[in-house]
């Protein structure tokens, strides 16, 4: 009867041995390769630190002018510029400026990294059905796996800090960009490609003069999603030592600081809305001349 009421599980002793064994070999692996891996990611760390330092060191009026300028250039909307201005006044006045700068720095870095990796991957996927078949399930796993699951091996390997945080953010945020790059290129009108072929374009010329420009609105929708997901993940990644708006929220939860939690929470929402609005309206603006469909 014991057999039915209790699941036939692995004996305690063996289970402990097994865990110990795996832990030990993973630790050995981390010890052996950790330095090398750290060194590999060093340029990334430098970039992140540079952005962070620059943003924090920039006098706020200059930052504001640049930000509002970018907002206007991206959206051509005065309303959005005013909204952005008020949002950052709120952030600054309630003493959250530096944390916001840290968060923007890491989002900037992870979006740059995502584009650097995601765009070529998406292009490769669009060019071969086999590559697409291999990459799609990997993206599916990346998107269904809860972030905490892959935080574990990353932290074990690289400890707590900016780089593991950044890697976690990129893993979380990159799939939509890859998917939409692939989709956007595959959706490019057949006749446009035929025209390019008929005029004797090389593969490269086709990619840069036809496929990427026509796919750009779709790719940009991917970048928008990547920005939003990076922001969400930056908050979670504060648990493994990413500085920024996430950490005070985490503190507030542990210590039940109500006001602090609400203010920083609001700051996160504000940054999210501003980024989303600006990048979306930029996306819509480029759509005007170059909808993926032919005219």
């Amino acid at each position, binding site marked *: 009867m014991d057999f039915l009421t209790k699941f036939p599980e692995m004996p305690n002793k063996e289970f402990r041995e097994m865990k110990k064994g795996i832990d030990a070999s993973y630790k050995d692996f981390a010890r052996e390769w950790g330095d090398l891996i750290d060194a590999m990611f060093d340029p990334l760390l430098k970039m992140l630190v540079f952005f962070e330092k620059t943003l924090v060191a920039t006098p706020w009026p200059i930052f504001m002018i640049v930000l509002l300028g970018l907002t206007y250039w991206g959206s051509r909307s005065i309303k959005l510029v005013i909204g952005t201005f008020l949002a950052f006044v709120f952030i600054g006045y309630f003493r959250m400026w530096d944390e916001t700068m840290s968060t923007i720095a890491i989002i900037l870095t992870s979006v740059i990294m995502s584009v650097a990796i995601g765009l070529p991957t998406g292009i490769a996927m669009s060019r071969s059905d086999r590559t697409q078949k291999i990459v799609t399930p990997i993206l599916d796993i990346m998107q269904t796996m809860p972030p905490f699951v892959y935080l574990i091996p990353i932290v074990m390997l690289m400890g707590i800090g900016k780089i593991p945080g950044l890697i976690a953010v990129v893993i979380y945020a990159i799939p939509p960009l890859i998917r939409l790059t692939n989709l956007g290129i595959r959706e490019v009108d057949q006749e446009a490609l035929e025209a390019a072929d008929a*005029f004797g374009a090389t593969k490269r010329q086709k990619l840069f003069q036809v496929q990427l420009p026509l796919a750009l609105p779709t790719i940009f929708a991917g970048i928008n999603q990547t920005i939003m997901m990076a922001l969400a993940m930056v908050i979670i990644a504060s648990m493994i030592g990413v500085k920024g708006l996430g950490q005070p929220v985490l503190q507030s939860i542990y210590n039940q600081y109500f006001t602090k939690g609400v203010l920083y929470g609001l700051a996160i929402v504000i940054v999210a809305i501003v980024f989303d609005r600006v990048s979306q309206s930029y996306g819509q603006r480029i759509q005007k001349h170059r909808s993926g469909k032919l005219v």
Partner: protein
Amino acid sequence: MSDAKIQIKNLYKIFGKNPKTAMEYVKEGVGKDELLEKHNHVLGLKDINLDIPERSIQVVMGLSGSGKSTLIRHINRLIEPTAGSVTIDGDEVLKMNEEDLRSFRRSKTAMVFQRFALLPHKTVLQNTIFGLHIQKIDDETAKKSALRWIDRVGLSGYEDKYPQHLSGGMQQRVGLARALTNDGDILLMDEAFSALDPLIRKDMQDILLELQDELHKTVVFITHDLDEALKIGDRIAILKDGIMDQEGIPAEILLNPQTKYVKDFVEDVNRARVIKAKHIMDQINGQDLNNAMPINQDEFIDRFIDKVIAEKPDSLLIQDKDKNNVGFLSSKKLAEILKR
């Protein structure tokens, strides 16, 4: 070697997993419908033979799905054939490697598409210049050439507009300017005017004919519209279900349709507007020429019919432009041809 500019020989195209095997069925006489139903392959083209002479307009006509686009895409090898050969100026297009093919497309051919296929992110000028831009021809030269053709198709002043701000007719003018800027001998036009409204379509046909008068390109013009075919074509090939039913000059096709399909096509045409005196004249062979009315051999029937009705001559004396007698036509025969 024949003196055809474009020579298509025994060309087969079958779409599907195993075209070579399916081609054997086709050779045994399996038709398009049966091939699809029983063997799950699409018959694109079957044993096409076509010589296209230099400096003339070859029309390829047929209903939708008859294989017109497939055929024209073999000329610049946008589609690989299942079997057969395509030679241009004596060079086998199908033997070219990637590099040769690219330079062949750049220097010898240009294409105009049914749905224009303009790049929406480029302006009229940038679209027109596209072919030269790809060849890395310096901007100054390329721009000069593009502007000239933009002007020729009547789009001066629109250089910096984006395609989507233009009407369909204007967009296709850009398509035409883009093709002409490339300056190849061969112009491939796949239903280039089919998407346009009738009036604009007529304009475009006139522009094409006017340009052709001056440029003398070898034009392959696809259409599903008989009136357009008759107006534009020096020769017409008729495709049905991947098979070429008939090929010849317009008058020949009107006067001697070889299959029921072609007959149905030409039934309602106003022959008087298509047939010239020289197409229906007989050899001069002892007929009585005394009371015959002289007619230029290149006149369309509808140009001289009123005169014939008014004066009621027994016969017509057909002459070339130097007034040499070249043929004879009895009024009875003329009446019969118009009645048929």
